[in-house]
């Protein structure tokens, strides 16, 4: 199928589980104010006291959000994902009962999936001396459990796929859903990702890589400072986010509210290093996304950056943006919202895609929170700081996701004409 004959794809629903506890609009309003959900997280394990700036969804009540039957049979990463999907589904105007179809599918992303279940299993064996583990362990821990539970709950009989591409997992799940709708494999797909990474062993593992932001009780809320001079890294976050992607005519025919069009998806692999990103690889992914969307660099009005606030990663992303946007880079609004909602690993792409969609829809650009002095190696773009930008007019925006392993995924959104 030629690119010209591909079907158009629009976003008709957004939903999430976030640390503030409210809906997507409430979440967006908060991050427009630069409100941080990062705090000093004390892991409940007694094995090894651990304190780390992190983001947890303490207000999330799985039984209330997805019911007792499902919540008692799922890992936390699935619970966060199912609740996010339900929220997006409600938002797109379809009933949870009887509106499913074999033409509709699920496309999900997660980095560590059922890590909490796996850690509990090992704790039972090696810490508590148990000799066997729950028969639910496999069904809880598997990386496609979230996607399958979403499909079962909503009656979605099309392809039900899960992607694990580290921190680009759910940008890929959204991009691959876009492709399936483009070529006529599905008319509607619930696409997104979820992550529950606050396990003792995972938090220790990230800490050992020296990429976790430093902070104490008083400073944790502003520990993650992308592009800032002296930045120290990111804060792990849990949560889930979903978009309902729909073929344009399908959405119009049922009178759905359309947020914007997902118009381009670019992918690349750095093929240089397992954990050190490469601007040339990122350049290719960004370029591919905006080219497919039919955008020139000057058309892009906002970049939701991957922006993890690591000393190594941020300047490489800025270099990639300067390579793509050339003379326009200096006026290109860029922000990294991980400074507020944390780094959701495999769910980061979906969370940031949702932010990008709402940014475009509301014509408002959220800031990089806690950014006061742009580091010398991160200059050259128009960093959005403070209270964000509320008096802007722009037609398109992109969301960058760059993963360990060198896999890059970029989503380009534009207002529908």
């Amino acid at each position, binding site marked *: 199928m030629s690119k010209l004959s591909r079907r158009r794809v629009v976003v008709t629903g957004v939903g999430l589980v976030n640390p503030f506890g409210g809906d997507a609009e409430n979440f967006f309003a908060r991050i427009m104010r630069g409100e941080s959900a990062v705090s000093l997280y004390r892991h409940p394990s007694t094995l090894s006291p651990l304190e780390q700036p992190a983001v947890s969804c303490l207000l999330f009540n799985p039984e209330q959000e997805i*019911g*007792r*039957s499902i919540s*008692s*049979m799922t890992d936390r990463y699935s619970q966060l994902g199912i609740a996010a999907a339900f929220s997006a589904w409600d938002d797109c105007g379809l009933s949870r009962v009887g509106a499913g179809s074999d033409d509709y599918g699920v496309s999900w992303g997660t980095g560590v999936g059922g890590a909490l279940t796996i850690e509990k299993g090992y704790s039972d064996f090696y810490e508590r001396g148990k000799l066997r583990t*729950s*028969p*639910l362990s496999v*069904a809880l821990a598997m990386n496609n459990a979230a996607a399958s539970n979403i499909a079962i709950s909503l009656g979605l009989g099309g392809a039900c796929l899960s992607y694990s591409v580290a921190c680009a997992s759910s940008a890929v799940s959204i991009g691959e859903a876009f492709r399936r709708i483009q070529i006529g494999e599905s008319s509607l797909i619930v696409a997104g990702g979820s992550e529950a990474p606050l396990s003792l062993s995972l938090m220790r593992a990230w800490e050992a890589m020296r990429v976790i932001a430093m902070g104490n009780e008083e400073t944790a809320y502003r520990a993650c400072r992308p592009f800032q001079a002296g930045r120290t890294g990111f804060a792990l976050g849990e949560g889930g986010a979903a978009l309902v992607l729909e073929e344009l005519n399908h959405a119009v025919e049922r009178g759905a509210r359309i947020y914007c069009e997902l118009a381009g998806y670019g992918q690349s692999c750095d093929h240089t290093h397992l954990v050190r990103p490469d601007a040339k690889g990122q350049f290719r992914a960004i370029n591919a996304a905006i080219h497919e969307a039919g955008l020139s660099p000057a058309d892009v009005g906002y970049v939701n950056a991957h922006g993890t606030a690591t000393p190594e990663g941020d300047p490489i992303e800025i270099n990639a943006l300067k390579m793509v946007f050339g003379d326009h880079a200096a006026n290109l609004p860029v922000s990294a919202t991980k400074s507020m909602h944390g780094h959701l690993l495999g769910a980061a792409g979906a969370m940031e895609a949702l932010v990008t969609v709402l940014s475009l829809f509301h014509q408002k650009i959220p800031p990089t929170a806690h950014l006061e002095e742009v580091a010398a190696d991160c200059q050259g773009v128009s960093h959005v700081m403070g209270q964000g930008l509320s008096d802007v007019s722009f037609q398109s925006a992109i969301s960058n996701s760059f993963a360990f392993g060198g896999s890059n995924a970029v989503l380009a959104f534009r207002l529908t004409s």
Partner: protein
Amino acid sequence: MSTLELIKDYIDRHVDNPPENLTLENRLDGIGLDSLAMLELMFEIEDKYNIRLPNDATKPETVGQLVELIEKFKPSAA
């Protein structure tokens, strides 16, 4: 706690709308216990009584049949 009470406790923790009056005649699938939930329930009961229910036992379809199966294998003093 009797075997029936153990089953009721599990159902109350795992099912959205548990029956107010659980009877021996209630069908397990009607209550909302699917095959996965049944595995977990039997696992919990095995742990509780320190017993092992046989893999080749006839699959219980009602609460009464499940109680009967457990009673057959649980220690007499329990």
